[in-house]
């Protein structure tokens, strides 16, 4: 396992097509230097099964970007995602993996920070938490 100092977390970001991230890209998967972005048509696709699977496969951190409540393009997709994120966080806590490895951003529009700032902060947080115990290098 990696030493904490040179630990480069594997981060997966799920983002809804409508929330303003990678909108002009056709690629469903985009590689950024610090994370991999997976685009969904709507965060309604997010389920605790999908999120836990990502951790099972070794992700150190997962972020979900979605539209603010009440502004879902399909009416209720993000409502479902918010619920599933909370549920997954509680499952991660039970598993002793720390729910903070999962972050959800559902008022991304309203924040000044922009994507880079949020991701830098999250990468830092995950570094402090250390590698996912299931990570195979």
């Amino acid at each position, binding site marked *: 396992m990696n030493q904490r100092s040179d630990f480069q977390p594997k981060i997966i970001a799920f983002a809804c097509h409508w929330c303003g991230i990678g909108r002009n890209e056709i690629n469903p998967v985009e590689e950024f230097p610090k994370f991999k972005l997976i685009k969904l048509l709507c965060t309604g696709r997010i389920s*605790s*099964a999908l999120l836990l699977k990502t951790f*099972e496969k070794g992700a150190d951190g997962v972020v979900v970007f979605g539209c603010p409540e009440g502004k879902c393009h399909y009416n209720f997709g993000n409502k479902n995602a918010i619920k599933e994120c909370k*549920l997954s966080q509680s499952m991660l806590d*039970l*598993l*002793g993996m720390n729910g903070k490895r999962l972050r959800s951003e559902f008022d991304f529009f309203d924040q000044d920070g922009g994507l880079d700032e949020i991701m830098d902060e999250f990468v830092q947080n995950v570094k402090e938490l250390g590698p996912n*115990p*299931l990570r195979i290098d």
Partner: protein
Amino acid sequence: MITDIIKKTKAYFCLDCGKCTAICPVTRYNRSYSPRKLVIKTVNSPDGNTLSDERLWNCLSCMMCQLRCPSGIDYIEFTKLMRKDARESGFLGQSTHGNVFESLWKIMANTKINQNRLNWVTSDLKVSDNSEYLYFVGCLPYFDQFFSDLNAQIIKIAQSTVKILNFFGVEPKILKDECCCGHDLLWTGDLDGFKSLAEKNVKLLKDANVKYVITTCPEGLVTFRFDYPKFFGDLGIKFLHITEFISEKITSERIELKPLNKKVTYQDPCRLGRYLGIYQQPREVIGSIPGIEFKEMERSGRKSVCCGTSCWTNCDRYSKLMQMDRLKEAKSTGAELLLTACPKCLIHFSCAQKDENYPEENRIKVADLTTIFCEALGGI
């Protein structure tokens, strides 16, 4: 190898009589499912084309058919082994809840995981590191979180159990890192997954140095009693269901219980009843509570009907119909409370009643036996 499965389960003895299909609760709703046809098809062409048959995943492994089969064919073992081969050939059933439980089990099985699963142990519950008894809680903390919207008070089963054990002078040991017993992976054909969970538990149980392990989950009990010894030999531990423990205590000790004025009925879980033969003990536990009026359902004991889904696989509209009919049967006894002794029965029957089309007149409260017995002892 299919031919080995046929030999091992004596499937070649099949008389094509159809008794299994006639009694099968799945066939009653899903006419395309027939255990007879599956057996015959496999025996007639053991080249493996049954493996892709999705109906292989409809069986509830409820054991009903097996008790009727005149040729003594081990149909549930047949299902289990065929599913293993099917999985290896890339065929799977429909996993419910997006297969979240499989991820949970795979994570739990990892030896580097340090679970944080004991938040339910409140200060009034006495547990001890030096005890002859261990209480194996299993998946309850996870079910409690995952099914929180059912309001089924799942974790109360664990809390009530510790309370009951405390009442009888037992301060059980509980494990911080135990994981799922592996039952569902075993029965959906993932033998490697099962073994990785079981190995972790076996090590913990051996290190725990206890004489008795109490469970509140019949599936766990079946797995510990019958399946672990097949892979790991005798662990030198006696595995008991909580109702076995209580029924023994109430016959040897005089205890004072608070009366509960309720009409209740009881669902025999498949694993507890047909697999383990524990029919009497739960009824003794219910009968010991003063004020309770016990009503038996028409189909009870050996004839009891499964709660409709097993192993979080193929939960479909037929499962719902089965659950609705079973709940109707429970209600028609005049009971106001349906007791069960398996957390999954509790989850399935609570879930069925969340359906918007669920008929109001059939609504019945469902609870685990331990929580009711604990109430009679004075409650949590």
